[in-house]
């Protein structure tokens, strides 16, 4: 099975988010859920570009971004691979980045009138869902 089969990347031109960032985020969530495991190769640029009907520049930009974030590495002549322990950043820096994202989600929760307790429950729920997915992929691997 190739990575492309499992990951099912898709782009949405109506989201207003740059297309390359959509690819970056989807590969990061595939890595988090276990759909893409460390050492596995990413689809090469041309077939992925053709499948998503986007310019290869877009995919190349997404891969360059993932590489600079330390999520993937490029082995010359072999392609791009998911790195094992993928953040090169110190723990403090990683926490700081996460805090920014959490703050944004909290602001969104406020405007959507989702109270604190419900928000925290939602976070737990989403974590459970992610772990369930990880177990499913691990299970599929061991078969």
């Amino acid at each position: 099975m190739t990575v492309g089969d499992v990951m099912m990347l898709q782009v949405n031109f109506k989201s207003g988010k740059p297309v390359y960032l959509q690819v970056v985020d989807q590969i990061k969530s595939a890595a988090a859920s276990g759909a893409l495991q460390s050492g596995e190769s990413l689809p090469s640029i041309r077939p992925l570009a053709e499948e998503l009907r986007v310019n290869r520049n877009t995919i190349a930009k997404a891969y360059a971004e993932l590489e600079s974030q330390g999520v993937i590495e490029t082995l010359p002549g072999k392609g791009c691979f998911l790195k094992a322990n993928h953040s090169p950043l110190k723990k403090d820096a990683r926490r700081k980045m996460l805090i920014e994202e959490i703050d944004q989600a909290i602001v969104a929760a406020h405007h959507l009138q989702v109270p604190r307790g419900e928000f925290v429950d939602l976070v737990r729920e989403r974590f459970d869902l992610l772990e369930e997915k990880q177990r499913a992929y691990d299970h599929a691997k061991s078969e």
Partner: protein
Amino acid sequence: MNTSNPAIEINHLTYAYSKADAVQDLSLSVARGKCYGLFGRNGAGKTTTMKCLLNLLRPRAGRVRVFGLDPNQREVEVKRKLAYVPDAVAFYPWMTVRETLDYLASFRAHWNRDIERDLLHRFRLNAAQKTGALSKGQKTQVALTAAICPEPELLLLDEPTSGLDPIVRREFIETVIGAYQESDPGNRTIFVSTHLITEFEGLIDEFTVMDAGRAVLTLGADQARERYQKIRARFANPAPTVEFKGAMHTRRDGRELELIANGEGPQIVEQLKLLAPESLTSEALTLEEVFVATLK
């Protein structure tokens, strides 16, 4: 040669066939390795612009440069670096696909047989067939194959998909562009004119919208989708008749309100929230919708 020259540079280009200007004071620049779209309705001046790049027409005013070269002074050098696919392709109908490709290859210093084989296979083209018996879509496929095999640094496509059925259109354009950019992507530039924007949505890096010979908008594709938003609100009562600053178009229909925002989407959304709508959504415009909104 200076390798930092853009693939295409057009400065204040003006061209007139008779009294009316077909292209008026057009300026744009296409960086190497990009896929650049020239969008416009029929008669907007797209083909005239292409023809000035090819030295098929001489600018009345302004100048064009291809890799820093004047197509009029250095025609052979310029043509060696590019391939052009016009909107209507014509081949000698008595030649087979094989003979046509060999004939076209004879004008080129370089011809990549692997790309040729790959594309003939993907398009399921029969090399032994006479080109006179090909459908319009198949002729375009042969023309595109012939444009890509020399691996030119610049590919000029003038309405490459007009007149083709939607399935064929969707299928082959990304195949062709993917094959073209496969080797040395930093030096593979595409300049494509079209009014059928949807199929190029994901392929375009940057574009210019032309109207009546003039450039009315030049923008990166991602920036365009970030900047232009369609905002919809539904109210419990008839939609309020409030002015929204930064709204390009406003449409009221009973309890519903639809606005097209240009860069001020977030402010408009905030303003709408204060009016307590029942529902409020916003989404990016596609490039085709940006095109339509710009020309309205």
